[in-house]
């Protein structure tokens, strides 16, 4: 039962509305490895049923239960034989189809039965409602959507009104901390690329730090955590800055701490 196409070929195909169907509809042929995709393509048993009905040009209002049920079961069986995870709803529908089919085969009491008693009625009602909603969903999706198809205009407004202070709660803080940790983890993976930074860029960094903190102990300029390459580039940057007389490097005596400050900065 693995290949539904074979299966469909083996049994004489259905007659629909009197027309003998000799060929299997192309849609029904499922390459075995495509089953998963097909299963994903359907939103559920109703969707699959609708597909079978519409592709065969069957009248929803007068469903020939036998061929429909058979085709449906072929799909379900094919999916099951491939051990694809099949939503329980598909099996429930299979049982329902079989129940309807068997009811249709039972002889009826001679008394005229009202149309609502047709065992297909409930299925038809559900199929119609689903199809209606499916179409509606497509139409909704075609409406221009803000963000996707149109953008709401909101030009910049300078704010001068009395400043309102931002509200912060403890959870915001925790969130900020979480972002930090996350970024720290990410940057751990990216340090390799950071090593390619130029000497110039590090010169700027050294200068900026000195602008903010006036004097730094030589060692403070270096962050061993960034790796040897960065240390070397930073050292080159410091030497270059000293050569350009932008830095003042002082040491009171041998082995005493070395201090670095901006050359033009006023001494404190």
């Amino acid at each position: 039962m693995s290949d539904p196409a074979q299966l469909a070929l083996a049994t004489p195909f259905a007659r629909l509305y009197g027309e003998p169907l000799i060929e299997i509809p192309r849609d029904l042929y499922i390459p075995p490895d495509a089953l998963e995709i097909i299963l994903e393509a359907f939103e559920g048993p109703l969707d699959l049923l609708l597909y079978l009905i519409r592709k065969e040009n069957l009248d929803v209002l007068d469903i020939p239960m036998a061929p429909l049920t058979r085709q449906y079961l072929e799909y379900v069986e094919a999916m099951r034989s491939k051990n694809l995870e099949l939503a329980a709803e598909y099996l429930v529908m299979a049982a329902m189809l079989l129940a309807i089919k068997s009811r249709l085969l039972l002889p009826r009491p001679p008394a005229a039965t009202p149309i609502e008693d047709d065992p297909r009625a409930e299925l038809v009602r559900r199929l119609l409602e689903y199809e209606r909603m499916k179409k509606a969903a497509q139409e909704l999706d075609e409406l221009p959507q803000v963000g996707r198809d149109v953008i709401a205009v909101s030009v910049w407004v300078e704010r001068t009104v009395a400043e309102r202070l931002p509200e912060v709660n403890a959870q915001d803080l925790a969130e900020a901390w979480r972002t930090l940790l996350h970024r720290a983890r990410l940057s751990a993976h990216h340090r390799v690329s950071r090593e390619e930074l130029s000497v110039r860029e590090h010169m700027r960094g050294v200068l900026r730090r000195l602008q903010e903190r006036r004097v730094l102990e030589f060692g403070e300029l270096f962050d061993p955590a960034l790796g040897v390459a960065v240390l070397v580039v930073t050292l080159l940057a410091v030497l270059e800055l000293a050569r350009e007389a932008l830095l003042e490097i002082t040491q009171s005596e041998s082995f005493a701490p070395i201090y670095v400050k901006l050359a033009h900065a006023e001494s404190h």
Partner: protein
Amino acid sequence: MQNPTEAKRILEAALLASPEPASLADLKRLFDDQVGVDTLKNLLAELRGDWEGRAVELVSLASGWRFQTRPEFQSFVQKLQPDKPPRYSRAVMETLAIIAYRQPVTRGDIEDVRGVVVSTQIIQTLENRGWIDVVGHRETPGRPALYATTRIFLDDLGLRSLQELPPLEEIAKTLQLEPAPAPVAPEAANEPAAPDERSAAG
């Protein structure tokens, strides 16, 4: 009060700067309620006319008026947008359609129509977008939440009211079923080749 040109200028600036659609009441406040609703409507109509033929238009939505880009220019405008717009799956859109056309509905109602379980994620996607919310509970066991669409949903889809939703296609109103037990159409029943149909069904 300002002269009409000045008033239109103010209206335009305020609407261009407003991130949300502005209601008539909002717009009246612009002029310290010194402008009547009719005057305001005329000004808005004029303003809308002024923008005709451009890539931005003034539209009237459920919550009010807003300037937005025209869909035809989206391929350009998109290039300067930092965020990628969400694309919703069929499951999400079908759920949305059922809520929009059949509201208020419970999750069970949605499942009945779709024939499959509706995941919490789908509901959350729509809630997070601000398109649906809980408007009450059905007085049945478990008191399931009743979902309905919001104003934001209408605004975001360019609609002024639910009446403007695309009309549902009436596929068929009456069921004209064959007298049982004919499982296939009448022609098929008279067709000599039909018997194997029944045996296949048996």
